[in-house]
């Protein structure tokens, strides 16, 4: 009996220390990790979508809260006016969460560019949603308001052949982005005013 109690106590104390150490390391590195992810994963997507902007969209960014989730918005200044934002939305893909970076022109609510950021899709199949420029190009100029669905589901989105689930995830991410955009648009416009040089 004494032996059993000793085992339980030792394991519990060890687990408590482990949890505490990991939580504090995570807190300490959270900001650094966010910056690194920004630089290496999302940065290229953002720069590509907001190509031609006269500012640095990665440093010109702000956060807004939508139903308890914090979303980062990256500002694109064109012709001296801050009129484009890029932000990330997520959809459930084949292997996990699929991140999509969407660039929107706030003047006419149209998409200026789309890029898949993080994903766990099948290499060579679903991953083509990220690597195939033709897939992302179909969203340019489309208004970010309506619901996005793939053609097999009755919608307008041309799916990546053989990767319907992945394409659905992208569509779901875009639909959600539309919802977020509509919800936060007044706040977005307000924040953008401060970035117009």
């Amino acid at each position, binding site marked *: 009996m004494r*032996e059993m109690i000793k*085992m339980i106590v*030792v*394991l519990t104390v060890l687990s408590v220390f482990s949890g505490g150490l990991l939580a504090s*390391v995570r807190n300490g*590195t959270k900001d*650094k*990790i966010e910056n*690194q992810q920004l630089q290496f994963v999302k940065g290229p997507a953002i720069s590509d979508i907001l190509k031609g902007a006269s500012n640095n969209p990665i440093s010109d960014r702000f956060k807004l809260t939508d139903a308890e989730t914090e979303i980062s918005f990256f500002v694109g200044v064109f012709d001296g006016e801050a009129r484009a934002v890029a932000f990330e939305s997520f959809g459930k893909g084949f292997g996990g969460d699929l991140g999509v970076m969407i660039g929107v022109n706030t003047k006419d609510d149209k998409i200026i560019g789309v890029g898949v950021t993080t994903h766990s899709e099948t290499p060579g199949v679903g991953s083509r949603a990220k690597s195939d420029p033709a897939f992302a190009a179909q969203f340019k100029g489309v208004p970010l308001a309506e619901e996005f669905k793939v053609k097999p589901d009755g919608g307008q989105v041309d799916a990546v052949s053989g990767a319907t689930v992945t394409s659905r995830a992208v569509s779901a991410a875009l639909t959600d982005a539309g919802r977020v955009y509509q919800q936060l648009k007044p706040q977005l416009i307000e924040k953008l005013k401060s970035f117009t040089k």
Partner: protein
Amino acid sequence: MAKTIVQEFTKGLWDEIPPFRLVLGLCPTLAVTKTVENGIGMGVAFTFVLLCSNILVSALRKVIPPKVRIACFIIIIATFVTVVELMMQAFTYPLFLKLGIFIPLIVVNCIVLGRAEAFASKKGIVASFADAMGMGIGFTLSLVALGSLREIFGSGTFTLGSMTGAVLSKLGIGTLAFWETPMQVFGPSFQPFKFMIEAPGAFVCLGLMLCIMNLFKK
């Protein structure tokens, strides 16, 4: 016959070098030696985990009940591996992406668990520290040796990478940009021996290294 502290350290560098003599930890050895950079990264991460794990297990050796010792070792090792993972994401993100799943797999690396069970749970802290340093450096050297062999003949390049490059450039030796770019070892007419980069090539190279080590022993 009891070994001195120095002997505990040096055994990991040759007599009991982990992948080639103890023949442990072969999975990461085969997988991350496509480039020298990956080998160094894995070696450093592994050494950190082994050091922390050995020291903690040795410190707690009188407290850990024998019946649950493996569970305790795993908790300790997994905690340090997660710490390494977070640190790599924070400071060396590109390397973290390159090593991928092999960082979390350090938890089940036979060397770490093996040293905890066979050594750290029985010997004092200083000896465990020396053992871990020796094994860690030995493992890193093995990865660099195998990685060099595979990269030089398989791709014709030699890359020290961004992590080593940052350290070297801070010491004033060369610039980060220089160390980061793969160095072409042979001329442009070199046809890379692609087999070396593939999995079967890894096995063959490992076999070669084991053969060379055995020749030296004789």
